[in-house]
């Protein structure tokens, strides 16, 4: 093999980025034009539709929150029970078989945490529909109050479920330390991890950072289009922009301070 053929093909980064930006601009223009053509003359209809959906959610707010809470409790209990059963298997088995059970533990934990988060997000979204002074002043304060109580109950269950999940994992792996009620829990947990576990956490954290940086510009475009055509307000754009700044700022601050610490050592 010759030296030339081994060298990777040179890529003009400026040209490639320029082309990507041009393609994105064209795509945005087409998307904007299509939205204008399809929905431009029907913004009133769409706003009426959104209002109808909101009033529907307001009507079903309490039963919906009750159903979500019930499903959350069933899923949470099932997840914890399964995790405990897997813990028993982990204690009983060795080496390769134990690897398989630990993979199952990771999967069960991930499903449990995800259902926990989904439940919280759904509860917030549903409660937000009725969480307005206008709706409360229209004589719906009892419905909102009852919904708030169910929401708080669901939130409390989720919080205690997370603590139980952490304590179950700590019972399976006694090396994992940290008090889940402490504000320093994440740091305590990280400190108790060994080098391979830390690498896994760091890799996952970096992938999360990359995913956020992919999704935030997309969300910004959607929130801007929403504001452009449906007058959804600037708040959504501000929130997404603030999240972007906070995430990037935290990442850069961490990089700089870590390098600074290493220099001072």
């Amino acid at each position: 093999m010759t030296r030339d053929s081994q060298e990777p093909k040179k890529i003009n980064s400026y040209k490639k980025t320029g082309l990507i930006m041009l393609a994105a601009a064209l795509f945005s223009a087409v998307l904007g034009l299509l939205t204008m053509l399809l929905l431009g003359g029907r913004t009133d209809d769409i706003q009426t539709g959104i209002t109808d959906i909101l009033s529907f959610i307001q009507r079903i707010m309490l039963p919906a929150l009750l159903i979500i809470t019930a499903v959350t409790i069933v899923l949470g209990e099932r997840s914890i029970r399964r995790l405990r059963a897997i813990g028993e298997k982990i204690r009983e088995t060795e080496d390769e078989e134990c690897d398989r059970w630990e993979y199952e533990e990771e999967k069960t934990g991930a499903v449990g945490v995800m259902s926990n988060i989904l439940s919280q997000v759904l509860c917030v979204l549903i409660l937000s529909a009725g969480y307005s002074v206008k709706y409360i002043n229209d004589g719906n304060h009892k419905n909102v109050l009852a919904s708030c109580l169910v929401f708080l109950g669901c939130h409390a269950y989720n919080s205690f479920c997370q603590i139980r999940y952490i304590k179950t994992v700590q019972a399976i792996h006694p090396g994992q330390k940290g008090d889940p009620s402490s504000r320093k829990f994440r740091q305590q947990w990280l400190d108790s991890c060994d080098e391979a576990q830390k690498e896994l956490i760091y890799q996952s954290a970096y992938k999360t950072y990359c995913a956020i940086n992919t999704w935030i510009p997309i969300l910004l475009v959607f929130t801007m289009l929403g504001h452009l055509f449906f007058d959804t307000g600037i708040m959504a754009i501000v929130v997404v922009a603030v999240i972007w700044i906070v995430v990037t700022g935290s990442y850069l601050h961490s990089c700089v301070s870590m390098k600074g610490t290493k220099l001072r050592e």
Partner: protein
Amino acid sequence: MALLNYLKEYRSRMGINQTELGKLAGVSRQTISLIERGDYSPSVTLALKLAKICQVTVEDIFEYKEDEES
């Protein structure tokens, strides 16, 4: 993977399982498993610790093999 290792063989010779070796080295069983499978390259400190536990040198456990293509 350029880094080969014979940790499993040495562990078997010692007659201990991954959990016990992990305890001796101060790491989790998962880490020992990852190293044995070649999915994780340990730090120099851990490699030295493992070699000391197995009473061999690091080179006995870990072997760097050049890729044929490079």
